[in-house]
Each structure stands twice: as C-alpha cells, then as structure tokens.
C-alpha cells in the first residue's frame, strides 16, 4: 500500500489520492474468444473497448494495449489468484497495486490542467466519458480517464516512484488563476 496520501484543495481543481486501489495487470491475447469469455466470467464485467474504461476503481477494467488490461479491484491478491486459476494458454497476471499511484482530479478546470502536460485533445467533444488514455504528463508516463458519471471528474495513474513529482506537477498546473478557460 502506498503510504503517501496527498490532497490539495486550494487550486483550480481538487487533487487527492484514494486510500488504496487494488490494481492487477493482466496480459493475454484479448482477441482470443475463449480468453475473453474467461476474463468476463472472472471479473464480472464486459471487456472494455479499445482505449476505454469499464466500471470504476473498486471494480473495473481499463484497456491498456491490444494484449493488456488493468483490473481495478478491492482485493488484488484474491483477484490475481482467481485470474491465475481461471485463465488458460499464455497469459501473465501481476499485482501492481504498490507499483502504481492513483490521483483523483475534480473540478471544472480539470481538462485544462491535463491539457497543459499531455499531447492529447481534451476538448469535451473529443475526449468522452470512460475514455482511457495512456500518454505522458510532462515527462512522466501516465494514463488518465474521464469518469462516466461527471465530465469534471478525472482519474490518473502513474508509477508509484514518481507520484510525489506528479502531485507537485498537478498542484503547480492547477494554481489559481493559471487556467486559460479555453476548453
């Protein structure tokens, strides 16, 4: 479990880290119909479409690449055991909960804060609910997604080793009065 729980509420957006998010990396051939059936049965959700997130941080799946999913769950050890037992063929399951950091970003300027650091079109007509995008934020590899519930609510994950830098970066990018109010 990550011991650094950060929170910032004095900028244009609210930045916080959830207490704990179970994350399991699953690498397998996501074009194989038997693999798809097994994953959907074990996790209890439909396989996400390309560059989409399905569910949420307590129970969800994100599309990482044509052969990789990130599974969000409450108990990553149990989830990894279930996947290891229930899948067949070539696959890899790894509990990465301690290797990744999650940030929750809330506020109507969140698109502009992210757009400062990522080469991504974050306009509301292009970046849609449940879109999940792996990219960079400044010089840090991240993935972020837009919540299906609210257009002002985003999540972001990065490697745990750079979470302090990521937090400082987000705080700086969301300083009061620093947004162009363009998006």
């Amino acid at each position, binding site marked *: 479990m990550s011991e650094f729980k950060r929170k910032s509420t004095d900028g244009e957006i609210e930045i916080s880290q959830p207490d704990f998010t179970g994350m399991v990396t699953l690498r397998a051939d996501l074009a194989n119909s038997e693999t798809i059936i097994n994953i959907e049965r074990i996790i209890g959700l439909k396989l996400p479409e390309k560059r989409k997130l399905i569910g949420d941080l307590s129970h969800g799946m994100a599309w990482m690449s044509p052969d990789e999913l990130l599974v969000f769950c409450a108990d990553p050890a149990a989830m990894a055991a279930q996947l290891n037992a229930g899948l067949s063929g070539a696959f890899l399951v790894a509990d990465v909960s301690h290797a990744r950091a999650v940030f929750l970003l809330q506020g109507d300027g969140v698109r502009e804060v992210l757009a400062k650091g990522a080469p991504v079109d974050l306009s509301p007509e292009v970046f849609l609910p449940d879109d999940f995008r*792996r990219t*960079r934020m400044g010089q840090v590899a991240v993935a972020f997604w837009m919540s299906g519930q609210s257009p002002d609510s985003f999540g972001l994950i990065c490697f745990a080793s750079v979470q302090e830098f990521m937090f400082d970066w987000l705080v700086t990018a969301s300083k009061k009065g620093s947004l162009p109010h363009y998006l």
Partner: protein
Amino acid sequence: MLLLTCPYCGVTAEETEFHGGGEAHIKRFAGGSDDAEFTGYLFEKKNPRGVVFERWRHVYGCGKWFHAARCSATLEIFGTYSAQTVKPSEAVISVIQARRPDWQVKP
C-alpha cells in the same frame, strides 16, 4: 513535428509520445555471419532524401512497435502499419505512389 497514428491502439499523437527506432525492413546478420555483413547490418543505414521507412514505438502509449513511411524532406507521413511484416504494406505503397509518382520500390 510529426503526427503519427499507432496502428495498434489507433491513437494519433505528436512525436513526443513515440520513440523512433531507426531504419525499417533491414535484415539482421548475427551469429554465423561474417564481419562485413554484421558491420553493414549495424552501421550502414540508408538515409535517403525522400521516402523513408522507419520503426517507431508508441512508448508513452500502448508500448507497441510499428512501422511508419514518411518523407524525410517534407516530413509528410504516408502511413503507419503493423510491425509483423518484413516489407511495406500494399496500402502504404499505393499511398506513396500516389503522392510521389517518381518513387520506385527498391528491393
């Protein structure tokens, strides 16, 4: 600034999300080859003015390697295609021929 489309995840992004991997479709000479062949494989890269085929990796995205065809003079991108091939796809060759009628496929 190059705008590349990753053929695996479909993302179109500028080149800072990618990483160039050098000349594409070269034959690897390793164990069993002589020094001249290995030197040629390792160092003697083509660097033409005009149509080039390159390897790129979507390093900040899905992480996959792919191929890109572009013009080294104008930076125009003709297309990107799968890494699981030893020669450019027919689709990208027809795009290049339409855009550069003088260009010939070299063996």
